[in-house]
């Protein structure tokens, strides 16, 4: 493998390492150097676990030398949103307050499973404080810069994940998505993201935000990388009471099955207007390439968004109640007042939102009887400038941060799986299109994603950094 032409995708690295064209150590050392060389420009990593990465790489190389199976992700380099436990590292979750915590005693479930699969953990990356954020402008660790345009936001709250992947500093980053925190950085950074079905992947060992909505998933530059990572992490886990007991359904070897027989529609109404034209042009571009003309509507999506909003603010506020009582001044000001208000949300509103959620689940299930995949914009705009405060939506100037999630939040409410598929239209900043499926249909979504990738409609090349 020619490391000068790095970054390769994750599965390309795995193939090179397994076939002895490169060692895991060579790949790891090259990326550690690249992380250091670009850090000042991007500010993605908050902790680089170089010692661990080299030890994991050496273990992979030793296994190969000894003729043992080094694992399905042998040598695949990845980063972690800094809310995941890495043994021996303090899990800061983008906060100042958690810096006083003891280092994690053990790896998060997903980290332990990545290690077993032979993947190489390069370190932890920046995020919006306690994940209540869509821009990763962190008061304590600074803003993460978008590798496609350093003056712009990488999105959030998994912004360091999006930036580290787009800049070619790793093949995969594992992030979390509550209201859009994987899909938004995927859109702004022009990369792939997988937000699995709620309960599909174990969240054990990750610092929570909204228990009713939190999911974890990979961001990457190829569909095969998403699938391989998803397969490595999947499986029941008693450490996360929400994690499904359903057996995992491996997808890696099914993604090239094509899209024959799949029923695909474009989400109309609420999802078809508002924001920058490019967000909707991208959906049309994908729909046209798949020959999709059908339009489908979900009932009252704006109310679904409101329910996700109320559940998030209430559960998030309650989670942080003790910290708000004793250390309110140590919060990032952008998150603090939202959490404080969340603590004071009337219980009736919360329970109404939860009842609405259950009702809407039935409505959405009804829609999915006639369709397999729904297309919608991921974000109403491409990456905003780091100092941008507003966005234009249906002719109105609205505050930026609370409105980035207009198209991701309704989907979140009922835990549907989504692949964020990056579209790079000529002369435009990238944006992603959401491929939304019925619960537990990740395989179908990744098949559609792979077809879009194969046809060159959706791609995620590493950004060219001019530094």
């Amino acid at each position: 493998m020619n490391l000068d032409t790095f970054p390769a995708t994750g599965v390309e690295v795995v193939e090179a390492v397994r076939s002895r064209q490169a060692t895991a150590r060579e790949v790891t050392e090259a990326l550690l150097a690249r992380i250091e060389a670009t850090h000042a420009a991007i500010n993605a990593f908050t902790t680089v676990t170089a010692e661990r990465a080299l030890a994991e790489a050496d273990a992979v190389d030793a296994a190969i030398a000894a003729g043992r199976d080094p694992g399905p992700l042998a040598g695949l380099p990845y980063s972690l949103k800094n809310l995941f436990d890495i043994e021996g590292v303090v899990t800061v979750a983008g906060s100042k307050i958690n810096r006083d915590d003891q280092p994690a005693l053990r790896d998060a479930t997903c980290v332990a499973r990545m290690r077993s699969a032979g993947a190489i953990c390069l370190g932890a990356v920046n995020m919006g404080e306690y994940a209540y954020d869509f821009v990763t402008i962190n008061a304590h660790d600074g803003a993460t810069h978008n590798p496609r345009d350093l003056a712009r936001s990488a999105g959030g709250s998994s912004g360091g994940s999006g930036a580290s992947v787009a800049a070619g500093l790793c093949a995969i980053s594992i992030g979390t998505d509550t209201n859009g925190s994987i899909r938004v950085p995927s859109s702004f950074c022009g990369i792939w993201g997988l937000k699995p079905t709620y309960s599909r992947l174990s969240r054990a060992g990750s610092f929570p935000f909204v228990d009713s909505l939190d999911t974890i998933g990979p961001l990457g530059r190829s569909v095969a990388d998403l699938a391989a990572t998803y397969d490595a992490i999947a499986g029941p886990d008693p450490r996360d009471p929400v994690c499904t007991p359903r057996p995992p359904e491996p997808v890696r070897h099914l993604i090239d099955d094509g899209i024959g027989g799949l029923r695909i529609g474009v989400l109309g109404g609420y999802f078809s207007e508002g924001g920058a034209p490019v967000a909707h042009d991208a959906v049309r571009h994908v729909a046209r390439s798949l020959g999709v003309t059908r339009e489908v509507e979900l009932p009252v999506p704006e109310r679904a968004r409101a329910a996700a909003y109320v559940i998030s603010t209430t559960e998030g506020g309650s989670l942080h109640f003790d910290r708000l009582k004793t250390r309110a001044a140590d919060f990032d000001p952008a998150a603090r007042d939202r959490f404080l208000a969340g603590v004071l949300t009337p219980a009736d509103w919360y329970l109404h939102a939860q009842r609405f959620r259950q009702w809407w689940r039935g409505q959405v299930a009804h829609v999915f009887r006639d369709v397999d995949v729904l297309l919608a914009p991921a974000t109403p705009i491409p990456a905003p400038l780091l100092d941008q405060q507003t966005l234009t939506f249906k002719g109105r100037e609205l505050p930026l941060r609370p409105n980035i999630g207009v198209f991701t939040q309704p989907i979140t409410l009922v835990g549907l799986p989504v692949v964020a598929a990056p579209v790079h239209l000529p002369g435009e900043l990238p944006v992603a299109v959401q491929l939304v499926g019925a619960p537990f249909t990740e395989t179908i979504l990744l098949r559609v994603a792979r077809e879009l990738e194969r046809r060159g409609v959706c791609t995620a090349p590493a950004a060219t950094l001019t530094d």
Partner: protein
Amino acid sequence: MLEINAPDVVAEVTACCEAYERALVTNDVPALHAFFWDSPHTIRFGAAEQLYGAGEISAFRSSRVINFAGRKSRRLTVLALGRDTAVAMLEFSALVNGSPRHGRQTQVWARFPDLGWRVTAAHVSHVPPTPPTTWQAYADSAATAIGLPLSPDHRPGVVANLEATASIAKPLLEFKLPADVEIAPVFVP
């Protein structure tokens, strides 16, 4: 010709005002006495009292029980008129009987050759409280009821977020759900 806002004069009086503020917040009565010109001409109009002469001012300060710990300077303007006279105008926030109030304080400072800078006249007032909005009153009461300290610095942002949540939740709460819908059970025994 009268020199306006000589930088060194403004700096000196600003330092005096800051020192006075520190003495006030800690209720350092001897220090507070010393800041005022010890003269029958000195007048201080407080928020509720009219004090003529340094004697009345000192007697008032010595007898009052007060906690100014919640007081914060918001905006200080010093106008220096020549080298020996300055007017200090301060906006501040304070807690009056537990509720946040906006206050104004005006002091006329003069420099005496043997004493240095002293306050010769002062006037303090509070903006009359406006009745709290529904969400301000709710935030204050609910925070108190559940034991959540709500700093005056954070309160406007919290109230704004509650108003935003209320506005976003309105169509949701107005939406009529079938009566038999229960929340999704997640507890698995």
